[in-house]
Each structure stands twice: as structure tokens, then as C-alpha cells.
């Protein structure tokens, strides 16, 4: 049983939204990163990472449930909110294509916010948990 490359699917999905890519900037390589942004990355940016979940063992076909976290880091509350709101709209209840798999459920759940202070700067962080479910096509 293969492991779907959900990291790839989320990245490909996020970059199809010009609202998001224009907001994070950095084109032609929008500032959307898996797990961690480069140390030299400017703000704002999005990171996303696998939080929990895996193989469901539900039917012979094979199903997967992945819980991911998508988070925006910005230097202002408004910028952070705008990007994470656009990301929510773009992902919630929308198809997350991945070759070889059928995406039958994509739902945003918990949303969170917090702020960090480092080196005399504020870093706004807003994000959400998203559940992505696939079955083998």
C-alpha cells in the first residue's frame, strides 16, 4: 500500500490561488513551504505540515485520513488574517487532486492564532487544522 504524497498535493493546491500567491509574494516561487520556511525568508509566508493521521484500514480498497496544519506567519494581524482566510476558502470542501487517489473529503476544523516576539519584532501566526481523506482510485 503506497503512501500518498499529500505534501505535494497541498502545495500544488495552494499555488493555484493567485489570491494566495499574490498575498505571500516571492513569485515565481511563492513563499509557501513544507514544514519550515528558509531562515532568510521574508514575511509573510505559509507553512504546512503533517500533524496526524495515516492509513485508515477501513475497506479493502484502502483509505487515508491526513490531518495537516496550515499556518501563516506575518508581521501584521491583517496580513496574517487575509492570507489564512484566503487559504481556508481555497481548501475547505474543495478537491485536493492527487494522481492515483480520490479525494472524498477535505474539511477545515480548528483555527488558531498566536503571536511571538523576537528581536524586537512581532510575528503574527494564524492557522488551521485540515483533514484530507483519500481512497485509492
Amino acid at each position, binding site marked *: 500500500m503506497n503512501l500518498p504524497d499529500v505534501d505535494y498535493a497541498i502545495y500544488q493546491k495552494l499555488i493555484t490561488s493567485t489570491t494566495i500567491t499574490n498575498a505571500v509574494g516571492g513569485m515565481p516561487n511563492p513563499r509557501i513551504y513544507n514544514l519550515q520556511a528558509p531562515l532568510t525568508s521574508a514575511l509573510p509566508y505559509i507553512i504546512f505540515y503533517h500533524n496526524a493521521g495515516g492509513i485508515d484500514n*477501513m*475497506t*479493502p*480498497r484502502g483509505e487515508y485520513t491526513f490531518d495537516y496544519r496550515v499556518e501563516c506567519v506575518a508581521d501584521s494581524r491583517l496580513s496574517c488574517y487575509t492570507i489564512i482566510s484566503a487559504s481556508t476558502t481555497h481548501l475547505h470542501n474543495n478537491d485536493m487532486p492527487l494522481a492515483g487517489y480520490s479525494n*472524498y*473529503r477535505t*474539511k477545515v476544523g480548528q483555527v488558531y492564532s498566536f503571536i511571538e516576539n523576537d528581536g524586537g519584532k512581532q510575528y503574527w501566526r494564524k492557522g488551521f487544522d485540515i483533514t484530507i*481523506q483519500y481512497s485509492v482510485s
Partner: protein
Amino acid sequence: MATNATNRYTAETLYISYRGVVVDVDFRSMSVTESVDTVDSSAGISRARTHIQTLNNAEFTIEYLEQLTTAGSAIRAALRLGADGTLIYAPEGTAVGKPRYSCIATVTGVDRSYPYDEIVSVSANLLRNGNWIAHYELLNSVF
């Protein structure tokens, strides 16, 4: 099928066919309930109840995840309410020598659940019609 020293097993290799359609691809569980009726034969000076076996019966419940109509029409049609046809199932798969069970069965009930935020599932109840055609314990039936 995973094997182990205690020879326990899961139903990951369960094969189910109904009316010529393989319906196990999205199944979640199958239950088989076999029973036999009895009549009380206690009488006179009996100090303990006795009985005589009469009619035996078998009921089946197949729970599975429903596919969209574009892909799942064959299974929907096969397991529709009132359908009557041959049920074949094989808990250990269909390799040569594995247990085989078969009978004519009628779909006597179909329960569907359409939750807003969960996957759509179906539970189909079937009732054996007539005697077993194949049964590992009763008839030594194998593939």
C-alpha cells in the same frame, strides 16, 4: 492475509459476490447469523426441557461505503431491495482449498446513512432462501 502463531485473522481477504457482482471492494464488515428453530418436546414426567430441531435459517448483513453513481451503479443494482440471487462469500479468499459459502439470498432491507460530515455508508440485510449451496462446516465446501 497476515498470519501469526495463533492463526487469528482479520477479514481483509473476504470475498463477497452477489448476483454475479463482486461487492467486497468497499465493504467494512459482514455478519452472518445462522440459527435453527426448535419445538418443545417436553412432556409427562420430564424433569428437564427437551426440544426437536425444525427449520434452520441464515441472515447476512453487509456494511459498505457507497460510491457515487458514476462508479457504484453495479453494486447499487446488485444489492437493491428485493433482489434475489446467489450470494458467495469466502472469509479467507478464493485460493484453492479455502472455505466457500454460498446460497440463494434475498435483500430484505437496505439502510443508508447520509451524514453531512462523514462518509456515506450502506447496510444491506439479506435472508437465505432455501438451503446452503456451499458451506465449509456443514458441507466441507472449498474453492
